[in-house]
């Protein structure tokens, strides 16, 4: 499939392609801002309960497998690198290279989810679960179950974003392979990857909050 011409890409109500691209980017950033605020509600709940149950949160975070958490951090950071490079090559019209990098990003994302699943399995097994499901006998402090409520909510919502991001990346990869993007038009790759970076950004904060402090 031939790269489509600029004129076909330009919607009727935009004066030129550059304005259209700026508009799309600004819209994406606004959307990312809403995502940040979405997580802020959870971060607020975390801050309040950590303030109140400082000791229980300290003890409960020791039940986390920090090694796995750190590994997942590295996985996501690396996936961000491959995603950023995918945009770099997409802009230069190197579609194959870009698609391979997107595939690598997808692979890292899947790795992240697998590691996360192992962690979840461990917590399920030990009864380290939210609210009324919390049955872990070794740590019976007020607030311990709250830590796991927050842990599952925060990582759960984040995991959902990872899954959505994987869907977006897969779509972009297929479109790239089919020659949908070119030097002149690579905005969708850029925007989809922006979303992926946000997923990484959120994790950069979740990691210390849940595993380190």
């Amino acid at each position, binding site marked *: 499939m031939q790269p489509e011409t600029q004129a076909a890409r330009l919607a009727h109500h935009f004066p030129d392609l550059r304005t259209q691209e700026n*508009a799309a980017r*600004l819209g994406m950033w606004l959307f990312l801002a*809403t995502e940040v605020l979405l997580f*802020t509600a959870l971060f*607020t*709940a975390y801050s309040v309960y950590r303030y109140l*149950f400082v000791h229980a949160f300290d003890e409960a975070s020791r039940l986390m497998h920090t090694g796995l958490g750190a590994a997942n951090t590295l996985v996501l950071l690396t996936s961000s690198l491959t995603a950023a490079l995918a945009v770099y090559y997409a802009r230069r019209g190197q579609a194959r290279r870009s698609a391979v990098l997107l595939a690598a990003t997808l692979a890292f994302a899947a790795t992240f989810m697998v590691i996360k699943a192992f962690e979840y399995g461990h917590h399920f097994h030990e009864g380290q679960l939210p*609210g009324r499901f919390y049955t872990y006998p070794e740590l019976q402090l007020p*607030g311990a179950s709250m830590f796991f409520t927050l842990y599952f909510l925060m990582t759960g919502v984040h995991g959902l974003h990872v899954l959505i991001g994987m869907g977006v990346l897969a779509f972009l990869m297929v479109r790239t392979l089919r020659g949908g993007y070119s030097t002149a038009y690579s905005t969708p790759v850029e925007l989809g990857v922006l979303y992926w970076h946000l997923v990484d950004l959120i994790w950069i904060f979740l990691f210390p909050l849940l595993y380190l402090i």
Partner: protein
Amino acid sequence: MSPSPASEAVYNRPNYLTADRGVRSWLTTRDHKRIGVMFLVLTAAALALGGFFALLIRIELLTPGPTIMDAMTYNRMFTLHGVVMIFLFMIPAIPGIFGNFFLPLMIGAQDVAFPRINLATVYLYLLGAAIAVYGMVHGGADTGWTFYTPYSTTTTTKVAPILLGAFVLGLGSILTGINFIVTTHTLRAPGLTWHRLPLFVWAIYATSVIQVLATPVLGMTLLLVTVENVFGFGIFDPARGGDPILFQHLFWFYSHPAVYIMVLPAMAVVSEVIQTFARKNMFGYKAVAYSSLGIAFVGFFVWGHHLFTSGQSAFDSGVFGVLSMFVGLFTAVKVFNWTATLYKGAIQVSAPFVYIVGFLFYLVFGGMTGIALATVSLDVHWQDTYFVVAHFHFVMAAGTVMAFLAALHYWWPKMFGKTYAERPALVGGFLVIFGFAATFVPQFLLGNMGMPRRYYSYPERFWPLNVASTAGASLVAIGFLIVLVNLVVSLAWGRVAGPNPWGSKGYEWNTPSPPDKENFPGTPVFTHGPHEYQEPVPAAAEVTHAA
């Protein structure tokens, strides 16, 4: 300003309503004007539904004891009244209808930045409404629209569908906001600098900022309540160390700015209508423009004034108390500038202008009672009484509805190309204005007496004022009926309006009525700000596409 044969001809040529035909062309349209019209139909239906619930509530309160329903039904009624009016009418109405229709016209754009997303907001609205209506039919929530925990997490009624419905509606609201912000940033026609933007655009822009930044917090909060309600994770559950007051913080972090989502678009309308009917430029354009942004910004800093009696710390109450005073300030600036705009004007008292005077009445008194409520010690007496109910109905219900009706009458000729009959419009307007006053002034007094809100039955000393309030509500209902009939009748039998029946110099009047599908034949170029009336207004038929 009588329509000439020329404007008849303009009316009969293809426009955005007639260019494409068939239901399909509406359901798949990406035309911002058609989307605005669809929102008009949808939100008007929501207004009727919410108004119906309101009437049932008022009839129930006609006597101190049970009147027409039991306590559980009553609780569901006021919950549904709140949910429908807020999420289905007030938040989407003015931005959804008039924002969609006129924001691109005012900035000389062909459409909003993301037309497909714009269409998606219509379907999100329908989906959210469908989920909420499903919840209403299958039990309906009894929590009040505020969903306070732990009541909302322990109630046996079906609260989850209503929460999810509100979540979906919130998503639509976010997308509308993103669309308007991007449109204003990127699609302004050449020559249209920020300080030449119509004040309507400024206020809608400010509204959008709030929608984008506040709504996600509500979304997550509603999800947390749903999770708590269904699974019992304990995040707000006191028995597990959870804090119900945390819910209130998160809820009001959205819901206080949300009242500005409802009022700022009303203020947007006021600025336009006042300038047109006073035929004068805005006194203090910049003050009015930036006070919109000021309201949007400071509106985020005051949510804690809903928590003065909840157990919030005195420190936080002090901080929120003093910050609340600054929000009132921006509103005061607007009111003073609007009034000063009339100075040396050429004022024509038509139906839209009458509604705006009604709006100013409700805004000034509602706003003043708001500042009184924010005065910390007075709030302790008034919190959760009918005083609060009357206050926010003055500003949000009466005020926003006044602006909504003003906008409807002001832009009706532009949207549909027909003028309505003036006299019924005035009669309906006066009935609605006086009806609202008769409904809610007694409620202020009930609040002073100490009658708490959401009371199904009440001691007999509150009886006479409740009767007065119900009587007022029936006036409002009759007024609405007259307005509705008058407007619908005008569609069929109204006079052809011509492009500019009011002789306005707002940019949107530089198009035919109804506008073409493509808005403008080319790209308009702007050379001056809107509403400059030093030159005579061109006769209606002579208005061309030149801007």
